[in-house]
């Protein structure tokens, strides 16, 4: 009596596991399993074994490591700080009281707030683009490493004057950056250079006005990597 539903369930699990493979490979592997008459459980263990091997093979490269542990994780921590800093500056400029939050807000002028906001946009977008373009197939790990400190900080953030969502201002531009990278992979050389230059100039300005942490300098690295990569792609195409 249980055989029918059990077989259906294992078949469904097998199909679900096979979805983790690329289309051509899924076709070949499921065909092989059908031809050899493998049971659904055996098939599922074979497919999962292949998926695990594929995933491990991706991590032999340096790029997923840099994307996940070099950009996504530290980037989310730094960008949460910048998001908070921008929110604090905005609240102080609009005359709202800020309790308990300690973030560098510089001299709190509108110009500085604008610079900070633009910097936040550029940093977050370029970090997202970097992660999306260099580690497309290991994106899940980068996303998990980016979100875990966010969730932890959100759960511990208790400030009556400010919503916890102020910490996550960087997420929308970062998501847009990832989406753009997944669609196009490369940026135009001029645009990439303009972004990197803008980030550097804005950083110098905000740094000079005590509105940035020293570690924020690291956030311009993805922008320069993208600019150099776009430039070298142009040179390769011309050669």
């Amino acid at each position, binding site marked *: 009596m249980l055989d029918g539903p059990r077989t259906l369930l294992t078949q469904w699990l097998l199909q679900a596991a096979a979805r983790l493979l690329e289309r*051509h*490979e899924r*076709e*070949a*592997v*499921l*065909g*092989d*399993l*059908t*031809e*050899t008459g493998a049971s659904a459980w055996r098939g599922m263990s*074979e*497919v999962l*074994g*292949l*998926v*695990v*091997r*594929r995933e491990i*093979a991706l991590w032999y490269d340096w790029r997923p490591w840099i994307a996940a542990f070099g950009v996504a994780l530290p980037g989310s921590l730094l960008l949460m700080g910048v998001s908070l800093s921008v929110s604090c500056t905005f609240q102080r400029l609009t005359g709202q009281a800020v309790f308990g939050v300690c973030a560098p807000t510089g001299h709190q002028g509108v110009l500085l707030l604008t610079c900070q906001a633009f910097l936040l946009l550029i940093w977050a977008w370029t970090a997202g683009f970097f992660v999306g373009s260099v580690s497309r197939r290991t994106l899940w790990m980068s996303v998990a490493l980016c979100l875990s400190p966010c969730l932890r900080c959100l759960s511990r953030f208790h400030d009556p004057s400010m919503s916890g969502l102020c910490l996550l201002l960087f997420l929308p531009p970062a998501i847009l950056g990832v989406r753009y990278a997944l669609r196009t992979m490369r940026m135009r050389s001029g645009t990439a250079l303009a972004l990197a230059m803008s980030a550097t100039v804005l950083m110098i300005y905000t740094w000079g006005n005590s509105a940035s942490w020293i570690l924020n300098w690291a956030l311009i690295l993805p922008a320069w990597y993208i600019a150099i990569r776009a430039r070298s792609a142009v040179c390769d195409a011309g050669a």
Partner: protein
Amino acid sequence: MLGEFEYLLITAAAGLGANAYGVSIREEIESTTGRQCSLGALYTTIDRLEKKGLLETWMGEGTRERGGRSKRMVRVTPKGVRAAKTFYEAVTRISRGAAWAGS
């Protein structure tokens, strides 16, 4: 220099000729060596060898016994033949005089 499993795979594919694909290569390796060969090991090795230019693969036509699904066909390239030959010669040379080598 090839690895042991890479050599087995190339040799099996070369022996099977136009009928070299996942299932047939796997059966050949299992029947010859008496060892289990997982699909994971098979396909990741095929990919690696293809990246090195030692194999070529393409999607063949589906058959009824496969539920209409395509086969991933495999062909050994001339570079693959040379690599297998080099491996075979090295193993033959180093095995000369070994107690288990045939006279």
